[in-house]
């Protein structure tokens, strides 16, 4: 059995190669072939023709397009994505400076959404058609219908504008900012024992986390509810109940454990979609992560950065999907991974 699992894993990893190659091609086509010339945007409309020509030469934009793509791929494989058109810093350095902010936000949001989503889903399945169930249904409907950025705006109006209890922008007060470390402020401040900074970082995280988590929370709640209802109707649950096992134990050990399989998949998929939602959340809260940075770079035609960010996010996304599928295969022995296609 483990041999099969390993074979399946290797096969899936090999299948990632054409997908990632395709992603680079798509991104390259959009940014380099279909996009307008970046020279007038970067140098300004009034730059001389000669200056623009020199700038294009310096950035390899006059090479044949196929060569440009091969160069891009070759460099990308070694983690070299060129330099930003504006700061002249290596793109990788610019991205790594902002990546921890996005990771910290995404992890907080997925934790919040999973814990409360599963909890709400289980409660509304067990107490089906009660006030709790209706309330969670309404919450889930609001969650999928409200634009993330508007929810963020409402939170700012309420907690920053009216109640004045939470900061509306940024990650931490500048003077409390931890130096070095992982870039995950909650972790860095906690390990260095700086609780004042930890509290401040946590306060900055509350609203962005809520805004980003809401949509996933709604999806996870609904999935948990319907998955739990399915399992609660199974024969083995009835058997367990008839043996006199306490209701709490039946729900926790018998039903939830089996219901968790589809829930895991949904949580994994939601983590991927959070990366997209981060673009909007970060813009609303001026959160210094890669989401808001990408939007700025697209507007400024900073192509090397955009290509790198999209490729990195796509890689993270397909890796998460792969991990979810592997967990799925591991949790449910009935899945015949040897026959499955990517």
């Amino acid at each position, binding site marked *: 059995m483990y041999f099969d699992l390993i074979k399946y894993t290797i096969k899936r990893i090999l299948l990632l190669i054409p997908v990632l190659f395709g992603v680079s091609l798509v991104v390259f086509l959009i*940014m380099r072939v279909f*996009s307008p010339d970046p020279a007038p945007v970067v140098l300004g409309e009034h730059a001389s023709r000669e200056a623009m020509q020199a700038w294009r030469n310096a950035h390899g934009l006059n090479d044949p397009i196929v060569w440009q793509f091969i160069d891009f791929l070759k460099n990308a494989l070694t983690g070299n994505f060129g330099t930003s058109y504006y700061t002249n810093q290596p793109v990788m350095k610019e991205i790594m400076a902002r990546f921890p902010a996005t990771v910290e936000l995404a992890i907080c949001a997925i934790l919040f959404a999973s814990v409360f989503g599963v909890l709400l889903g289980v409660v509304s399945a067990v107490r089906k058609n009660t006030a709790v169930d209706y309330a969670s249904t309404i919450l889930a*409907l609001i969650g999928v219908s409200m*634009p*993330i950025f508007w929810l963020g705006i409402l939170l700012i*109006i309420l907690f920053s504008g009216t109640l004045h209890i939470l900061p509306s922008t940024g990650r931490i007060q500048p003077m409390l900012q931890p130096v070095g470390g992982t870039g995950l402020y909650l972790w860095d401040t906690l390990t260095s024992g700086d609780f004042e900074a930890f509290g401040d970082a946590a306060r900055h995280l509350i609203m962005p986390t809520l805004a980003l988590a809401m949509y996933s929370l709604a999806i996870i709640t609904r999935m948990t509810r*319907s998955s739990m209802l399915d399992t609660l109707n199974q024969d083995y649950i009835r058997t367990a109940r008839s043996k006199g096992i306490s209701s709490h134990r039946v729900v926790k050990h018998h039903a939830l454990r089996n219901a968790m399989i589809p829930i895991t998949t949904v949580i994994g998929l939601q983590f991927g979609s959070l990366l997209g939602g981060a673009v*909007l959340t970060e813009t609303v809260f001026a959160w210094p992560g890669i989401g808001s940075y990408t939007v700025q770079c*697209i507007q400024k035609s900073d192509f090397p950065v955009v290509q790198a960010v999209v490729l990195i996010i796509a890689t993270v*996304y397909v890796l998460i999907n792969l991990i979810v599928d592997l967990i799925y295969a591991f949790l449910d022995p009935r899945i015949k991974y040897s026959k499955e296609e990517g």
Partner: protein
Amino acid sequence: MDKTQDTAAEISLSTQEFLEKPESQWKSMWDSLKKNKAAMVSLAFIIILVLIAVITAIFPQVLPHDPYEQNMTKTFLFPDGRYWFGTDQLGRDIFSRIMVGTRVSLSVGVIAVAVSMTLGVVFGSLAGYLGGKVDSFIMRIMDIMLSIPSILLAIAFMAALGQGIDKAVIAISLVSIPEYARIVRGEILSVKENDYVQAAKVIGDKDGRIIFRHILPNVLSSIIVRATLGISSAILDASALGFLGLGVQPPAAEWGDMLGRARNYIFQAPYTLIFPGLAISLTVLAFNLLGDGLRDALDPKSRQN
């Protein structure tokens, strides 16, 4: 005795009805949709939105104020009897702007879904029906598109295409093709093996005829459900692009764009940010509820939950 007769009469009557007018799938769907209050309220709300969009386009004079007229002496007026939702940073009436914005959001949602659905149905049908290499090729491309978060891909398309609501429609249509292609392919794979499709093949029907006459009508219902829900996500995506400043050109009124531009005045005039967001949320909510209702009406199994 009487009782038996009555029952017999009832049975013969219902048989007669049945023979005269076989109940179509659409009628039974409508009958069960009618019982769903949330879906009916949503449908009514959507009809009102359509009416608002049409009427404000033909008779702009019904609006209390000119939605585009700037008046720097009347900026940030608090909502009152004259300006129901207040005025914005340029002194324009927010209520009138939301009303004309209805047309933008609805048409973006409908057109984007129509385009992506058509292309998705074409690609999904080809992949599912022809199978083999065509299938792998099309579905790998869809996988590639699905591995980039859709809002990021849409923003990248916007960067290439340039700003504008027509371009937003194209960007949103492109990024939602894979979803439809996947659904249609899956449905076709399951319908393809049915006897009636095989029978059509034996008779010698051409592939195109089999797809259009025998397969697509059977997957139509799930496409319609998906399309209704798709309108809500297209409206959300369009408002997100508008919010990021990639949507309509000024002075056009679009809900997401209104939020994006009023954002800097969040503490000074929060009400400028309340109503456009409410308009987006209610519209999206209505399409979601209607889509859920349609799904339940088409698939009685899902109603039990």
